[in-house]
């Protein structure tokens, strides 16, 4: 997919702001930031951000495409919406962060090993397969994200929790074999395929 990355570099040469405005969810809000920094200070995982939102906006204006898109900062967003409600310019910051992450991910230049990126993929595949989340499969595939060994290690660590969940009937082993999703999975999949097509067309992304 990195060919689409090359395409984008070509298309928007040294105008990253324009690229973001065109291709990133709510990207046309970026220019409205006045660098007050309230978002940066409002993020619960703030310490984990190499570049807080307001700085990312500045970097976008400064054309630091590589630094932004390969950063794992956006992946630290917990979707708590603190930044949105406090922003004096009403920028939909949470969504812009999501948009940037998604865009980087689609271009194939998002940090490969970022756990949130990988979990997000696992989650999406999990819920879209049957139309509903299969929590057991979800957690299992999560633990085995890094291969069998790490998986077992992780699994053991999580075991007490898992047992708690089983005890309280909040986790169902049967789900491994018999998880009932929605009826019209066919329609759902067609819908999602179409949605993806349209979006890619709009953003000039090769799917």
């Amino acid at each position, binding site marked *: 997919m990195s060919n689409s990355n090359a395409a984008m570099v070509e298309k928007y040469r040294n105008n990253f702001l324009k690229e973001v405005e065109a291709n990133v969810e709510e990207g046309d809000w970026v220019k*409205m930031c006045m660098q007050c920094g309230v978002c940066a200070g409002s993020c619960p995982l703030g310490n984990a951000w190499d570049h807080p939102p307001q700085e990312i906006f500045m970097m976008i204006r*400064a054309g630091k495409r590589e630094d932004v898109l390969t950063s794992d900062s956006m992946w630290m967003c917990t979707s708590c919406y603190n930044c949105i409600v406090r922003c004096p310019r009403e920028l939909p910051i949470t969504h812009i962060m999501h948009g940037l992450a998604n865009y980087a991910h689609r271009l194939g230049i998002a940090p490969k090993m970022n756990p949130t990126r990988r979990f997000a993929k696992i989650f999406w595949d999990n819920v879209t397969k049957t139309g509903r989340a299969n929590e057991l499969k979800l957690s299992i595939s999560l633990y085995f994200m890094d291969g069998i060994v790490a998986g077992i290690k992780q699994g053991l660590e999580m075991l007490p929790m898992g047992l708690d969940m089983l005890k309280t009937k909040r986790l169902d082993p049967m789900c491994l074999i018999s998880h009932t999703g929605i009826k019209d999975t066919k329609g759902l999949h067609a819908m999602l395929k179409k949605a993806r097509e349209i979006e890619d067309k709009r953003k000039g992304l090769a799917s």
Partner: protein
Amino acid sequence: MADEKKLAAYICKGCGLGDRLDTPQLMTIAEREGKCQVVKEHDFLCSAEGVAMIRADIESDGVTHVAICACSRRAKVEAFNFNNVAVSRGNLREGVIWSQPDTEERREVTQEMADDYVRMACAEIKAMRVPEPNPNHGSNKRILIVGGGISGMTAALESAKAGYEVLLVEKTGVLGGWAAKLYKRVPDVEPFDGPVDTGIDALIDVVNGNSKISVHLNSTLSRTSGAPGQFSVDISQESGATITENIGAIIQASGSEVFDATKLDNLGYGKSPDVIDQVQLEELAKAANGGAIKRPSDGKEVTSVAFVQCAGQRNPFDDNMLDYCSGHCCNTAMKQAMYFKDANPEVDTNILYHDLRTPGNGEDFYRSAQQKGVTFTKGFVKDVVVNGSLNVNFKDAILDEVTSMEADLVVLATGQVPNSGVDIEAAAAPVEDEKGDEQTVAAKEEGVSVLNLTYRQGKDLPHLSHGFADSHFICFPYESRRTGIYPCGPVRRPMDISQAIEDATGAALKAIQAVENAELGRAAHPRSGDLSFPSFRKEGCTQCKRCTVECPFGAIDEDEERYPQFNEGRCRRCGTCMGACPVRVISFDNYSVETVGSQLKAVDVPDEFEEKPRVLVLACENDAYPALDMAGMNRREYSAFVRVIPVRCLGSVNTIWVSDAMNSGYDAVLLMGCKRGDEYQCHFVKGSEIAHTRMSKIGDTLEQLNLEAERVQTFEIAITDVDRVPQLIDEAVKMVDEIGMSPFKF
């Protein structure tokens, strides 16, 4: 009529005065010592009935001089407001019973205080004359406006709309000033979303079409003399001809020049034609007239432009640069960036700023600029390198890195430099040696005068910081130091069009006010309505020139015989001249060496064995006296040995008062004036300062009388010093206690 005096004293018994004081004794004093023909007491003097009693005496009994012995002169003013009589106030309430504890042991001294204040009030009216309007006042009501820019034209039009004749003098061949050079302006009404027409052409037409306004182009003032209501000016025209006109008041709207950008070669100015200032950008925009803006060097359409804010501004570290911020440049840069964006959204426009300053609804304008894609970078520009392309090197404050951007065009936000004429203080600065002398001569010639005043104190309005001809005051922006002459627009402080329009309209009112007051021969702010004016006995005058030098308002010139020539219309009635005069020939009808001198002499000074010292306080009526009043209102107690006399300004304090006080046995004299120095709060500019200098010199006099220097002290008092003033008084009494009573008691 001023001569057939009939003195009356009225003693109030209200507010506890009757209970605390022996008022019959006060009446006897007023009668015997005060020599009042009419003496009455009243339970409630400020009541309708009490006031009616006084009026009756004035109307039917021919009373001309009234001593109200009741509350402070600041209280019940409206009640005791009588026309065509001289009024003094004996402050028995705030000044006596409210500042003294109601105790047995203090009863006697409290009564002595009251006795003295009655003596003083009577002595004062005895020395007063009922002021009459200045006879040689002018009544010309035409308003002269210097400068035909937006400020000048606005002032002209607004004055005309109020019904006044206007004479507008513009040094260039066209009206419009800087505003006429703009392609568009920043909006001042909603929506604040983009550049709007300046409307300047329409304004020019209205001005030219107005029958009350006569415009002189290519003209300057070669002479300005006279006073409010009776100014006379010579208008020199390009042709060489000079016409003389009479006018009533002057508005100086001489505007500003742009900062000389050639001083900014580090920013590439002069090195490349594509580095320009904001004024030049307006020219380009006008040429493009909504189309693509082309760069000067090769006429290529501009695809990227960098706006460098604060170019040569906000820089106190370099004498060649401006210390201040010109206020409008942030909005102007945004407006100009919008020129590009509106013509072609693809153009990159970046504004490099330190602090983005868009107060009020400018914030909407800011958002609108961002909406249009103008980008903003908080950055400090190091330099602009010219080599084929333009590279702006700067420190990005947010990303915390030194970086650079390339641009087809660089626009420098240089500031406004006031066109305020000659710096008369610098010109008048004393010089030590020959060399220095040359320099001052040079300084004198430096800069072209705008007004060419024939005033002894110089050709133009005094400058304040950075050469602006502003008023020094926050609450009184039009408190000009040349009565009847009002600066407005960017000559006063840096400002944008909207503020200039407001400012010019305000200045027009002040000009109108000046001519209306002049016609009635009354003083202007701060002693508005005061009819008294300085007169002097030529016979006694020694031509020492102190009055002409020290007048804060340049009201006094010298006649051909080198005698002081008072221009009453220019006078603000502070009395600084009176305080300056060593031979005491200057006086006002209701305020003179006599009115104060007789008060302090009227005080009954006990002999030294009584161990009742007397401390005289001469208090500025605007700050120290109100502070004392409020001390009384809040029952702050202070020594009963003090006697307070309010003065118009410490500048009016003549040293004779101090030596008289010493001779008549006072143990100490305290002068309480307002803050002096650069941040002075004296509405008569230097009064407090001058008094201080005079008193520092009085040391010798004291020595001759072989008295301790600390018996005379000067203080800076703020109106809020409600606790401090009583302390200072008590400390003075304590000091007397320590160094001993004055030997001059009889």
